[in-house]
């Protein structure tokens, strides 16, 4: 069937070996005018080299302050079927496992009430239902909650939908139960997820180990990254098997053919703390010097495993550049056990939020509030003790904000006594 709009430029994106989103949209466009007009609008953007969407307004279903992104096309005269094209964010199950039953139901809802186009998934982790009209928002929400047991995710000045790596579901390195932690945060803070109250967005991300597969350290206001405090577990026989070429190094990530591992060059020389030694028979690790970077474990997954005294490092303040520049997460809790019912963590979160709500300026991420008011203010508000693990180096400027309580007599001088000692 011929489509309404000619799309010579988009047609070029049907070529090549990678799956084509254009071909995919075209299938839906044959029966859905919304998808058909979306292609026409996108072709016009390709001609103009400019987008054609206006934002704003609509935020969600009744009583929710997030979960829907309002979008209006700026050429409804040409593309009336995408005049309104709102996005719904649907909270994904942690680590994104699905049954085909639930996916098919979701497709049926979206076939009937939306554009038939999705993102699997948005950057934050939600299922994105791309494009519907205002009158469909409540019916879709009703079916999501009643038929699928699903709910909307976050947008705006909310806690955003938390997300995590695959964790213990299918990874031997996960030091914490990333899915359970994510589920716990999501359920405990439903009100914060759906009803905005913060100065700006707030993201939680949880990775099971320092490889950080969800990029928590780069983009979460609060990053929870699994780690351990005891010794790396070693299977010396397996180490010898890697050196002897019986096992494929790096779990096959650098080629699946068997080859002898050059343990000196590929492991020991690359260890950032030089805490390992190989005597030809045994691998010795000085664990007290290890910073748990994961390199040796990544290279010899069948010989080395994280320790058993596991927990998490908590970092705060990571964000993309807008407004004050990009920040990575900074360590504020070097180690916390992170076991259910997570009470210690909840207390920390609530103290952190109370401080940020009180002190944060509008559109200021947590990392920027900390930058403006100082780490000391944050640590005091969250009742955390300073620890060398929180810094790369101690300060090297001499502008110390001394605490008057620790100076004899506080900040007041005795001018009379001074002038008795020093004549003006």
């Amino acid at each position, binding site marked *: 069937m011929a489509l309404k709009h000619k799309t010579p430029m988009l047609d070029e994106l049907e070529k090549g070996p990678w799956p084509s989103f254009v071909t995919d949209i075209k299938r839906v466009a044959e029966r859905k005018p919304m998808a058909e007009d979306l292609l026409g609008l996108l072709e016009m953007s390709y001609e103009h*080299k*400019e987008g054609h969407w206006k934002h704003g307004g609509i935020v969600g279903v009744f009583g929710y302050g997030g979960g829907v992104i309002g*979008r209006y096309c700026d050429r409804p005269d040409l593309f009336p079927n995408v005049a309104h094209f709102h996005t719904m964010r649907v909270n994904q199950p942690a680590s994104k496992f699905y049954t085909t039953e639930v996916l098919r139901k979701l497709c049926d809802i979206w076939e009937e009430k939306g554009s038939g186009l999705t993102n699997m998934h948005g950057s934050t982790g939600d299922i994105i239902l791309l494009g519907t009209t205002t009158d469909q928002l409540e019916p879709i929400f009703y079916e999501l909650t009643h038929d699928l047991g699903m709910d909307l995710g976050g947008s705006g000045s909310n806690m955003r939908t938390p997300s995590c790596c695959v964790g213990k579901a299918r990874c031997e390195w996960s030091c914490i139960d990333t*899915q359970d932690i994510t589920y716990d945060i999501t359920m405990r803070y439903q009100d914060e997820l759906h009803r905005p109250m913060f100065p700006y967005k707030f993201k939680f991300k949880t990775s099971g180990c320092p490889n950080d597969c969800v990029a928590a350290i780069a983009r979460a206001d609060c990053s929870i990254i699994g780690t351990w405090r005891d010794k790396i577990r070693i299977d010396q026989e397996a180490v010898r098997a890697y050196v002897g070429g019986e096992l494929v190094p790096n779990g096959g990530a650098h*080629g699946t053919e068997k080859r002898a591992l050059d343990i000196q060059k590929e492991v020991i020389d690359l260890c950032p703390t030089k805490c390992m030694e190989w005597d030809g028979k045994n691998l010795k690790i000085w664990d007290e010097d290890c910073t748990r970077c994961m390199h040796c474990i990544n290279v010899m997954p069948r010989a080395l495993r994280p320790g058993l005294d596991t927990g998490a490092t908590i970092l705060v303040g990571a964000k*993309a550049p807008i*407004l004050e520049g990009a920040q990575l997460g900074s360590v504020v809790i070097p180690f916390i056990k992170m076991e259910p019912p997570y009470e210690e963590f909840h207390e920390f979160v609530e103290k952190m939020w109370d401080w940020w709500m009180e002190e944060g300026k509008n559109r200021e991420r947590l990392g920027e509030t900390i930058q403006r008011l100082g780490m000391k203010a944050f640590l005091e508000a969250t009742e955390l003790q300073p620890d060398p693990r929180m810094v790369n180096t101690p300060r090297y400027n001499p502008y110390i904000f001394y605490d008057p309580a620790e100076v004899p007599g506080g900040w007041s001088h005795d001018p009379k006594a001074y002038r008795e000692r020093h004549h003006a």
Partner: protein
Amino acid sequence: MPFDPNDIMKDRITDIGPPKYDKFFPPVIKENYGKWKYHEILEPGVLVHVSETGAEVYTVRVGAARLLSVDLIREICDIADKHCGGYVRWTTRNNIEFMVDDKSKLQPLIDELKSRGNWFPIGGTGASVTNIVHTQGWIHCHTPAIDASGIVKAVMDELFDYFGSHKLPAQVRISLACCLNMCGAVHCSDIAILGVHRKPPFIEHERVQNVCEIPLVIAACPTAAIKPKKVGDYKSIEINEKRCMFCGNCYTMCPALPIADGDGDGIALWVGGKVSNSRTAPKFSKLAVHYIPNEPPRWPTTVQTIKKILEVYASDARRYERVGEWIDRIGWERFFEKTGLEFRHEHIDDYRLAMTTWRTTTQFKF
């Protein structure tokens, strides 16, 4: 009870949250939760995880566009029903993972995926270019400087061989954000594609007072470049254009300040970021190319520049070195020399804390 449009509060359910994570686990995942012992990549895109119990799960990872139609999702469901007991999952980087609990089921699954045209390329594991994470672009965003899906498609077509192989020194994470707001947080990627505006917004004075809250517009500017100004009879604003850093925040607050411009907008490329703590600390991506024009539909200059960077890295880096670790070893002067990219004023930081990036040693290479 069906939805009643006249009474939306009837039987209303709210705040139920997502389905619990284990509700959709395949049995082999549920039974071996927390018991996995080791994994191995059998060939690019195909993994086996082995449990303490002896159970195995075989995973086939396939690339996909982030934008999926319900038709394609239903096709994915057909495959999962036929081979995987009706279960499937997605990764953080938009890949799809099909899992089977027995080796005998693996080859039929792979054959099925390969029989369906281009839709299910197998790969994205180990030292590969895995799927590109990206933002909405012209498909759905209101402040984009570039498209997202189209550029991703063009780049992945060109780098396709690297998706289904392990021939790079380490994994290479490519990401795309269609404006400086980076809702995809691409600032720690091996190679980041970033949409940039280069013209300050223009002001529709006659519209400003009707569609904008002037105090909010002023507050939205990170460099305090916006001031109120009366223009004729209109209450409007003025912009100190020299202070504009092209973020588009004012346009978000005020639709009478359009910033997009087909000829001004384009792409900046950034290199050398990473998020993993492996060997070296996580780091930001740094500027490699300050501007490439938008070239729809296939962005050839962008694609070829990325390919050039990737191939110089592939031939020069040592095993396990990420792009950023390679550059740290050879030095930025060598990076620009080897890639043939031009080093310009724009590469020297002049924003806040710029001096922390200037060379403060006599150690460098000629």
